[in-house]
Protein backbone atom coordinates (compact mmCIF):
# COMPACT_ATOMS: atom_id res chain seq x y z
CA UNK A 1 0.00 0.00 0.00
CA UNK A 2 1.42 3.32 -0.89
CA UNK A 3 1.19 6.65 0.77
CA UNK A 4 -0.47 6.23 4.10
CA UNK A 5 -0.99 9.37 6.05
CA UNK A 6 1.80 11.06 7.86
CA UNK A 7 1.82 10.09 11.43
CA UNK A 8 1.50 13.49 12.99
CA UNK A 9 0.46 14.69 16.36
CA UNK A 10 -2.42 16.53 14.85
CA UNK A 11 -3.78 13.14 13.98
CA UNK A 12 -5.21 14.00 10.59
CA UNK A 13 -2.31 14.71 8.33
CA UNK A 14 -3.07 12.86 5.18
CA UNK A 15 -0.61 12.48 2.41
CA UNK A 16 -2.52 13.53 -0.61
CA UNK A 17 -0.61 11.35 -3.02
CA UNK A 18 -1.99 8.12 -1.84
CA UNK A 19 -5.17 9.67 -0.73
CA UNK A 20 -8.14 8.54 -2.73
CA UNK A 21 -11.35 8.96 -0.91
CA UNK A 22 -13.59 8.68 2.03
CA UNK A 23 -13.28 5.08 3.06
CA UNK A 24 -9.55 5.37 2.82
CA UNK A 25 -9.63 8.16 5.32
CA UNK A 26 -11.76 6.05 7.55
CA UNK A 27 -9.37 3.19 7.16
CA UNK A 28 -6.59 5.47 8.25
CA UNK A 29 -8.56 6.76 11.17
CA UNK A 30 -9.45 3.27 12.19
CA UNK A 31 -5.90 1.99 11.90
CA UNK A 32 -4.60 4.97 13.76
CA UNK A 33 -6.80 4.26 16.70
CA UNK A 34 -5.03 0.96 16.89
CA UNK A 35 -8.01 -0.52 18.58
CA UNK A 36 -10.77 -2.64 17.31
CA UNK A 37 -13.38 -0.47 15.70
CA UNK A 38 -16.06 -2.01 17.80
CA UNK A 39 -14.43 -0.56 20.85
CA UNK A 40 -13.97 2.94 19.63
CA UNK A 41 -16.71 5.44 19.35
CA UNK A 42 -18.36 5.40 15.99
CA UNK A 43 -19.66 8.81 16.77
CA UNK A 44 -16.18 10.06 17.41
CA UNK A 45 -14.98 8.48 14.21
CA UNK A 46 -17.78 10.10 12.25
CA UNK A 47 -17.02 13.45 13.86
CA UNK A 48 -13.35 13.23 13.05
CA UNK A 49 -14.08 12.25 9.54
CA UNK A 50 -16.55 15.02 8.96
CA UNK A 51 -14.17 17.49 10.52
CA UNK A 52 -11.53 16.23 8.14
CA UNK A 53 -13.81 16.70 5.19
CA UNK A 54 -14.68 20.19 6.26
CA UNK A 55 -11.05 21.12 6.65
CA UNK A 56 -9.54 19.33 3.73
CA UNK A 57 -8.63 21.45 0.77
CA UNK A 58 -8.78 18.23 -1.18
CA UNK A 59 -12.50 18.18 -0.88
CA UNK A 60 -13.06 20.49 -3.76
CA UNK A 61 -11.93 18.04 -6.33
CA UNK A 62 -14.69 15.65 -5.71
CA UNK A 63 -18.29 15.00 -5.53
CA UNK A 64 -16.96 11.53 -4.88
CA UNK A 65 -17.14 11.92 -1.18
CA UNK A 66 -20.87 12.01 -1.26
CA UNK A 67 -21.39 8.31 -0.93
CA UNK A 68 -19.38 7.87 2.19
CA UNK A 69 -20.15 11.23 3.66
CA UNK A 70 -23.86 10.68 3.28
CA UNK A 71 -23.54 7.30 4.85
CA UNK A 72 -21.60 8.64 7.78
CA UNK A 73 -23.90 11.55 8.36
CA UNK A 74 -26.72 9.11 8.42
CA UNK A 75 -24.78 6.93 10.82
CA UNK A 76 -24.15 9.84 13.07
CA UNK A 77 -27.77 10.89 12.98
CA UNK A 78 -28.78 7.44 14.06
CA UNK A 79 -26.66 7.81 17.12
CA UNK A 80 -27.75 11.29 17.97
CA UNK A 81 -31.41 11.28 17.20
CA UNK A 82 -34.09 9.41 19.06
CA UNK A 83 -34.99 6.23 17.33
CA UNK A 84 -37.93 6.05 15.01
CA UNK A 85 -40.46 3.66 16.46
CA UNK A 86 -40.71 1.74 13.22
CA UNK A 87 -37.01 1.16 12.84
CA UNK A 88 -35.11 -1.59 14.46
CA UNK A 89 -33.01 -0.11 17.16
CA UNK A 90 -29.38 -0.16 16.08
CA UNK A 91 -26.73 -0.02 18.70
CA UNK A 92 -23.45 1.74 18.30
CA UNK A 93 -21.85 -1.65 18.42
CA UNK A 94 -23.82 -2.90 15.50
CA UNK A 95 -22.92 0.20 13.57
CA UNK A 96 -19.29 -0.24 14.38
CA UNK A 97 -19.56 -3.80 13.18
CA UNK A 98 -21.04 -2.79 9.87
CA UNK A 99 -18.45 -0.09 9.48
CA UNK A 100 -15.68 -2.48 10.34
CA UNK A 101 -16.93 -4.90 7.73
CA UNK A 102 -16.99 -2.21 5.10
CA UNK A 103 -13.46 -1.20 5.88
CA UNK A 104 -12.25 -4.75 5.84
CA UNK A 105 -13.91 -5.27 2.51
CA UNK A 106 -12.16 -2.34 0.94
CA UNK A 107 -8.87 -3.30 2.53
CA UNK A 108 -9.25 -6.82 1.19
CA UNK A 109 -9.81 -5.49 -2.31
CA UNK A 110 -6.83 -3.16 -2.06
CA UNK A 111 -4.68 -6.09 -1.06
CA UNK A 112 -6.15 -8.30 -3.76
CA UNK A 113 -5.39 -5.61 -6.31
CA UNK A 114 -1.83 -5.45 -5.11
CA UNK A 115 -1.47 -9.20 -5.34
CA UNK A 116 -2.75 -9.07 -8.88
CA UNK A 117 -0.20 -6.42 -9.75
CA UNK A 118 2.55 -8.56 -8.29
CA UNK A 119 1.74 -11.47 -10.58
CA UNK A 120 4.05 -11.96 -13.55
CA UNK A 121 2.34 -9.69 -16.01
CA UNK A 122 2.15 -10.00 -19.74
CA UNK A 123 4.21 -7.39 -21.48
CA UNK A 124 6.36 -6.80 -18.41
CA UNK A 125 7.37 -10.16 -16.99
CA UNK A 126 6.01 -12.58 -19.52
CA UNK A 127 5.87 -12.08 -23.21
CA UNK A 128 3.84 -13.15 -26.15
CA UNK A 129 5.28 -13.92 -29.54
CA UNK A 130 6.86 -10.77 -30.80
CA UNK A 131 6.76 -11.57 -34.47
CA UNK A 132 3.25 -12.16 -35.65
CA UNK A 133 3.06 -10.77 -39.12
CA UNK A 134 4.12 -13.92 -40.86
CA UNK A 135 0.84 -15.60 -40.06
CA UNK A 136 -1.15 -12.60 -39.18
CA UNK A 137 -4.46 -13.89 -40.29
CA UNK A 138 -4.66 -16.86 -37.98
CA UNK A 139 -6.69 -15.14 -35.40
CA UNK A 140 -7.10 -12.04 -37.37
CA UNK A 141 -10.78 -11.49 -36.97
CA UNK A 142 -10.08 -10.77 -33.35
CA UNK A 143 -8.44 -7.58 -34.40
CA UNK A 144 -11.23 -6.31 -36.57
CA UNK A 145 -12.81 -4.20 -33.90
CA UNK A 146 -13.30 -4.39 -30.20
CA UNK A 147 -16.52 -3.95 -28.33
CA UNK A 148 -15.17 -0.66 -27.10
CA UNK A 149 -14.68 0.55 -30.68
CA UNK A 150 -18.24 -0.38 -31.38
CA UNK A 151 -19.70 1.32 -28.34
CA UNK A 152 -17.63 4.43 -28.83
CA UNK A 153 -18.63 4.67 -32.45
CA UNK A 154 -22.26 4.38 -31.55
CA UNK A 155 -22.06 6.75 -28.60
CA UNK A 156 -20.30 9.41 -30.59
CA UNK A 157 -22.65 9.09 -33.49
CA UNK A 158 -25.63 9.41 -31.23
CA UNK A 159 -24.12 12.41 -29.52
CA UNK A 160 -23.60 14.18 -32.79
CA UNK A 161 -27.06 13.29 -33.86
CA UNK A 162 -28.52 14.63 -30.68
CA UNK A 163 -26.68 17.86 -31.21
CA UNK A 164 -28.00 18.14 -34.70
CA UNK A 165 -31.61 17.24 -34.28
CA UNK A 166 -33.70 15.54 -31.73
CA UNK A 167 -36.83 13.78 -32.79
CA UNK A 168 -38.98 12.31 -30.10
CA UNK A 169 -41.62 9.80 -30.91
CA UNK A 170 -44.95 11.03 -29.65
CA UNK A 171 -45.52 9.21 -26.38
CA UNK A 172 -48.97 8.28 -25.27
CA UNK A 173 -49.46 10.99 -22.73
CA UNK A 174 -52.61 12.60 -21.42
CA UNK A 175 -52.87 16.33 -21.79
CA UNK A 176 -54.38 18.58 -19.17
CA UNK A 177 -56.82 19.85 -21.73
CA UNK A 178 -58.12 16.37 -22.54
CA UNK A 179 -58.39 15.62 -18.86
CA UNK A 180 -60.38 18.77 -18.24
CA UNK A 181 -62.77 17.80 -21.01
CA UNK A 182 -63.10 14.35 -19.49
CA UNK A 183 -63.79 15.71 -16.00
CA UNK A 184 -66.41 18.11 -17.30
CA UNK A 185 -68.12 15.31 -19.15
CA UNK A 186 -68.34 13.06 -16.11
CA UNK A 187 -68.94 15.65 -13.41
CA UNK A 188 -71.47 17.50 -15.52
CA UNK A 189 -73.92 14.62 -15.28
CA UNK A 190 -73.18 13.50 -11.72
CA UNK A 191 -73.27 15.33 -8.45
CA UNK A 192 -71.75 12.71 -6.15
CA UNK A 193 -68.18 12.78 -4.96
CA UNK A 194 -65.78 10.91 -7.20
CA UNK A 195 -62.34 9.75 -6.32
CA UNK A 196 -59.70 11.23 -8.59
CA UNK A 197 -58.28 7.82 -9.41
CA UNK A 198 -61.68 6.66 -10.66
CA UNK A 199 -61.41 9.22 -13.41
CA UNK A 200 -58.51 7.53 -15.12
CA UNK A 201 -59.98 6.34 -18.41
CA UNK A 202 -60.33 2.61 -18.84
CA UNK A 203 -57.64 1.14 -21.02
CA UNK A 204 -54.94 3.51 -19.88
CA UNK A 205 -51.58 1.83 -20.16
CA UNK A 206 -49.19 1.45 -17.25
CA UNK A 207 -45.99 3.25 -16.39
CA UNK A 208 -45.54 6.70 -17.78
CA UNK A 209 -48.95 6.72 -19.37
CA UNK A 210 -50.92 6.17 -16.20
CA UNK A 211 -48.71 8.57 -14.31
CA UNK A 212 -49.32 11.22 -16.91
CA UNK A 213 -53.05 10.49 -16.78
CA UNK A 214 -53.16 10.97 -13.02
CA UNK A 215 -50.98 14.06 -13.13
CA UNK A 216 -53.08 15.69 -15.84
CA UNK A 217 -56.29 14.82 -14.08
CA UNK A 218 -54.96 16.41 -10.94
CA UNK A 219 -53.82 19.50 -12.77
CA UNK A 220 -57.12 19.73 -14.61
CA UNK A 221 -59.06 19.36 -11.39
CA UNK A 222 -57.11 22.21 -9.81
CA UNK A 223 -57.78 24.31 -12.85
CA UNK A 224 -61.50 23.52 -12.81
CA UNK A 225 -61.66 24.11 -9.09
CA UNK A 226 -60.07 27.50 -9.64
CA UNK A 227 -62.75 28.26 -12.17
CA UNK A 228 -65.40 27.15 -9.73
CA UNK A 229 -66.54 24.26 -11.88
CA UNK A 230 -65.63 21.55 -9.36
CA UNK A 231 -65.08 21.15 -5.67
CA UNK A 232 -62.17 19.24 -4.25
CA UNK A 233 -61.69 17.64 -0.90
CA UNK A 234 -59.05 15.65 0.89
CA UNK A 235 -59.44 14.28 4.43
CA UNK A 236 -55.84 14.24 5.45
CA UNK A 237 -52.37 14.71 4.00
CA UNK A 238 -51.72 12.21 1.22
CA UNK A 239 -55.28 11.00 1.58
CA UNK A 240 -57.65 10.28 -1.24
CA UNK A 241 -58.55 13.28 -3.38
CA UNK A 242 -62.22 13.50 -4.24
CA UNK A 243 -64.09 15.88 -6.47
CA UNK A 244 -67.59 16.72 -7.62
CA UNK A 245 -69.17 19.06 -10.07
CA UNK A 246 -70.77 22.32 -8.97
CA UNK A 247 -72.93 22.65 -12.03
CA UNK A 248 -71.61 26.15 -12.63
CA UNK A 249 -70.34 25.58 -16.07
CA UNK A 250 -73.78 25.08 -17.61
CA UNK A 251 -74.90 28.41 -16.30
CA UNK A 252 -72.00 30.21 -17.86
CA UNK A 253 -72.37 28.67 -21.25
Amino acid at each position, binding site marked *: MNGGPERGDEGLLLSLDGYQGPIDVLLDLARRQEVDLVRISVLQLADQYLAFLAASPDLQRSADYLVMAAWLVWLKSRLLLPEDEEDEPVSAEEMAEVLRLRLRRLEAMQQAGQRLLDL*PRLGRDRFARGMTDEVADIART*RHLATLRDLLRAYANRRMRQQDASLSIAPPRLHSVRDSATLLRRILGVSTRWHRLFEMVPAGTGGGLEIRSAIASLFAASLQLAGDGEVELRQDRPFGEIELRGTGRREEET
Partner: protein
Amino acid sequence: MNEERPEPAHRKDGCRLAEALLFASAEPLAEDFLQQRMPEGVAVGEVLAELVRAYDGHGVNLVRVGAGWAFRTAPDLAGRLRREVDVPRRLSRAAVETIAIIAYHQPATRAEIEEIRGVVPGRGTMDMLFELGWIRPHGRRETPGRPLQWVTTEAFLDHFGLASLDDLPGLEELRASGLLDPVPEFGSDPEPEDNGG
Protein backbone atom coordinates in the same frame (compact mmCIF):
# COMPACT_ATOMS: atom_id res chain seq x y z
CA MET B 1 7.39 -34.48 -29.38
CA ASN B 2 10.92 -35.61 -29.01
CA GLU B 3 9.77 -38.93 -27.69
CA GLU B 4 10.79 -41.78 -29.86
CA ARG B 5 7.75 -43.92 -29.09
CA PRO B 6 5.87 -44.67 -32.27
CA GLU B 7 2.62 -42.87 -32.72
CA PRO B 8 0.25 -42.38 -35.57
CA ALA B 9 1.55 -39.91 -38.08
CA HIS B 10 -1.57 -37.83 -37.90
CA ARG B 11 -1.16 -37.35 -34.16
CA LYS B 12 2.30 -35.98 -34.67
CA ASP B 13 1.03 -33.86 -37.52
CA GLY B 14 -1.62 -32.45 -35.20
CA CYS B 15 1.05 -31.58 -32.67
CA ARG B 16 3.18 -29.77 -35.17
CA LEU B 17 0.26 -27.85 -36.55
CA ALA B 18 -1.04 -26.82 -33.12
CA GLU B 19 2.46 -25.80 -32.14
CA ALA B 20 2.83 -23.63 -35.23
CA LEU B 21 -0.60 -22.06 -34.87
CA LEU B 22 -0.10 -21.26 -31.21
CA PHE B 23 3.40 -20.03 -31.78
CA ALA B 24 2.40 -17.73 -34.58
CA SER B 25 -0.46 -16.10 -32.76
CA ALA B 26 0.16 -13.38 -30.21
CA GLU B 27 -3.21 -14.00 -28.66
CA PRO B 28 -4.56 -17.12 -27.06
CA LEU B 29 -6.31 -19.50 -29.43
CA ALA B 30 -9.52 -21.17 -28.40
CA GLU B 31 -9.50 -24.91 -28.03
CA ASP B 32 -12.40 -25.09 -30.47
CA PHE B 33 -10.45 -23.17 -33.03
CA LEU B 34 -7.57 -25.60 -32.75
CA GLN B 35 -9.77 -28.68 -32.73
CA GLN B 36 -11.31 -27.67 -36.04
CA ARG B 37 -7.86 -27.67 -37.57
CA MET B 38 -6.74 -31.01 -36.21
CA PRO B 39 -6.38 -33.95 -38.58
CA GLU B 40 -9.16 -36.50 -38.57
CA GLY B 41 -9.46 -38.35 -35.28
CA VAL B 42 -6.95 -36.29 -33.32
CA ALA B 43 -8.24 -34.89 -30.03
CA VAL B 44 -6.82 -31.45 -29.43
CA GLY B 45 -6.85 -32.03 -25.69
CA GLU B 46 -4.23 -34.74 -25.98
CA VAL B 47 -2.17 -32.71 -28.37
CA LEU B 48 -2.19 -29.77 -25.98
CA ALA B 49 -1.29 -31.94 -23.03
CA GLU B 50 1.63 -33.28 -25.00
CA LEU B 51 2.81 -29.82 -25.97
CA VAL B 52 2.51 -28.59 -22.39
CA ARG B 53 4.73 -31.47 -21.35
CA ALA B 54 7.21 -30.92 -24.16
CA TYR B 55 7.66 -27.26 -23.30
CA ASP B 56 7.80 -27.76 -19.58
CA GLY B 57 11.05 -26.27 -18.28
CA HIS B 58 11.75 -24.42 -21.51
CA GLY B 59 12.15 -20.67 -21.78
CA VAL B 60 8.74 -20.62 -23.43
CA ASN B 61 5.74 -22.48 -22.01
CA LEU B 62 2.34 -23.42 -23.28
CA VAL B 63 -0.25 -22.09 -20.84
CA ARG B 64 -3.98 -22.19 -20.48
CA VAL B 65 -5.79 -18.86 -20.60
CA GLY B 66 -9.45 -19.30 -19.83
CA ALA B 67 -10.89 -21.20 -22.75
CA GLY B 68 -7.76 -20.70 -24.82
CA TRP B 69 -4.09 -21.55 -24.99
CA ALA B 70 -0.99 -19.53 -25.67
CA PHE B 71 2.79 -19.72 -25.64
CA ARG B 72 4.28 -17.32 -23.13
CA THR B 73 7.80 -16.80 -21.90
CA ALA B 74 8.51 -18.53 -18.61
CA PRO B 75 7.61 -16.36 -15.61
CA ASP B 76 10.92 -16.97 -13.87
CA LEU B 77 12.81 -15.21 -16.65
CA ALA B 78 10.85 -12.06 -15.93
CA GLY B 79 13.64 -9.84 -14.69
CA ARG B 80 15.97 -10.79 -17.50
CA LEU B 81 13.59 -10.07 -20.34
CA ARG B 82 12.01 -7.04 -18.87
CA ARG B 83 14.25 -4.33 -20.13
CA GLU B 84 13.80 -5.32 -23.74
CA VAL B 85 10.15 -4.41 -23.89
CA ASP B 86 7.88 -1.57 -22.95
CA VAL B 87 6.32 -1.66 -19.56
CA PRO B 88 2.57 -1.30 -19.53
CA ARG B 89 1.46 2.00 -18.19
CA ARG B 90 1.05 2.37 -14.49
CA LEU B 91 -2.42 1.76 -13.23
CA SER B 92 -4.03 4.29 -10.97
CA ARG B 93 -5.01 3.16 -7.53
CA ALA B 94 -8.66 3.61 -8.47
CA ALA B 95 -8.14 1.33 -11.46
CA VAL B 96 -6.44 -1.32 -9.34
CA GLU B 97 -9.22 -1.32 -6.78
CA THR B 98 -11.86 -1.40 -9.45
CA ILE B 99 -10.35 -4.29 -11.38
CA ALA B 100 -9.89 -6.20 -8.13
CA ILE B 101 -13.52 -5.68 -7.18
CA ILE B 102 -14.74 -6.77 -10.59
CA ALA B 103 -12.40 -9.76 -10.64
CA TYR B 104 -13.30 -11.04 -7.20
CA HIS B 105 -16.96 -10.10 -7.12
CA GLN B 106 -17.94 -10.71 -10.70
CA PRO B 107 -20.40 -10.16 -12.09
CA ALA B 108 -20.32 -6.72 -10.49
CA THR B 109 -22.40 -3.63 -11.12
CA ARG B 110 -21.16 -0.08 -10.92
CA ALA B 111 -23.20 0.40 -7.80
CA GLU B 112 -21.37 -2.45 -6.10
CA ILE B 113 -17.98 -1.04 -7.02
CA GLU B 114 -19.09 2.28 -5.68
CA GLU B 115 -20.36 0.66 -2.53
CA ILE B 116 -17.11 -1.06 -1.75
CA ARG B 117 -14.83 1.80 -2.68
CA GLY B 118 -16.98 4.37 -0.97
CA VAL B 119 -16.51 6.79 -3.81
CA VAL B 120 -18.31 7.35 -7.06
CA PRO B 121 -15.94 5.90 -9.64
CA GLY B 122 -14.56 8.46 -12.01
CA ARG B 123 -15.69 7.94 -15.56
CA GLY B 124 -12.21 7.33 -16.78
CA THR B 125 -11.56 4.35 -14.56
CA MET B 126 -14.07 1.94 -16.01
CA ASP B 127 -13.34 3.10 -19.52
CA MET B 128 -9.65 2.57 -19.03
CA LEU B 129 -10.16 -1.00 -17.87
CA PHE B 130 -12.51 -1.50 -20.78
CA GLU B 131 -9.96 -0.03 -23.15
CA LEU B 132 -7.32 -2.38 -21.81
CA GLY B 133 -9.72 -5.14 -22.73
CA TRP B 134 -9.83 -6.45 -19.17
CA ILE B 135 -13.54 -6.07 -18.53
CA ARG B 136 -16.67 -6.47 -20.54
CA PRO B 137 -20.38 -6.12 -19.92
CA HIS B 138 -22.15 -9.35 -19.24
CA GLY B 139 -25.86 -9.54 -18.60
CA ARG B 140 -27.97 -7.42 -16.37
CA ARG B 141 -28.83 -7.69 -12.73
CA GLU B 142 -32.49 -8.41 -12.29
CA THR B 143 -33.00 -5.59 -9.83
CA PRO B 144 -34.70 -2.24 -10.35
CA GLY B 145 -33.03 -0.41 -13.20
CA ARG B 146 -31.59 -3.66 -14.55
CA PRO B 147 -28.01 -2.42 -14.17
CA LEU B 148 -25.35 -3.79 -16.46
CA GLN B 149 -22.99 -6.29 -14.89
CA TRP B 150 -19.27 -6.39 -15.58
CA VAL B 151 -16.97 -9.38 -15.74
CA THR B 152 -13.31 -9.85 -16.54
CA THR B 153 -12.13 -11.06 -19.94
CA GLU B 154 -9.68 -13.59 -21.22
CA ALA B 155 -7.26 -10.75 -21.87
CA PHE B 156 -7.35 -10.06 -18.15
CA LEU B 157 -6.43 -13.67 -17.39
CA ASP B 158 -3.72 -13.52 -20.02
CA HIS B 159 -2.26 -10.33 -18.67
CA PHE B 160 -1.97 -11.68 -15.15
CA GLY B 161 -0.99 -15.17 -16.20
CA LEU B 162 -4.06 -16.84 -14.73
CA ALA B 163 -5.36 -20.06 -16.22
CA SER B 164 -8.82 -19.36 -14.84
CA LEU B 165 -10.63 -17.20 -12.34
CA ASP B 166 -10.13 -19.89 -9.73
CA ASP B 167 -6.47 -18.95 -9.77
CA LEU B 168 -7.05 -15.43 -8.53
CA PRO B 169 -4.61 -15.00 -5.68
CA GLY B 170 -6.14 -15.45 -2.26
CA LEU B 171 -9.58 -16.21 -3.63
CA GLU B 172 -10.23 -19.09 -1.26
CA GLU B 173 -9.32 -17.15 1.85
CA LEU B 174 -11.40 -14.20 0.77
CA ARG B 175 -14.37 -16.43 0.17
CA ALA B 176 -13.92 -18.14 3.47
CA SER B 177 -13.65 -14.86 5.31
CA GLY B 178 -16.99 -13.73 3.90
CA LEU B 179 -15.45 -10.55 2.57
CA LEU B 180 -16.78 -11.26 -0.89
CA ASP B 181 -20.35 -11.54 0.34
CA PRO B 182 -22.72 -8.65 -0.06
CA VAL B 183 -22.47 -6.41 2.95
CA PRO B 184 -25.55 -6.30 5.15
CA GLU B 185 -27.24 -3.04 4.43
CA PHE B 186 -28.63 -1.62 7.53
CA GLY B 187 -31.00 1.20 7.88
CA SER B 188 -32.87 -0.57 5.16
CA ASP B 189 -34.77 -3.65 6.17
CA PRO B 190 -32.90 -6.34 8.03
CA GLU B 191 -31.97 -8.43 5.04
CA PRO B 192 -32.34 -12.15 5.03
CA GLU B 193 -28.86 -12.48 3.59
CA ASP B 194 -26.91 -11.61 6.64
CA ASN B 195 -23.43 -12.91 6.71
CA GLY B 196 -22.17 -12.76 10.17
CA GLY B 197 -18.80 -11.71 8.80
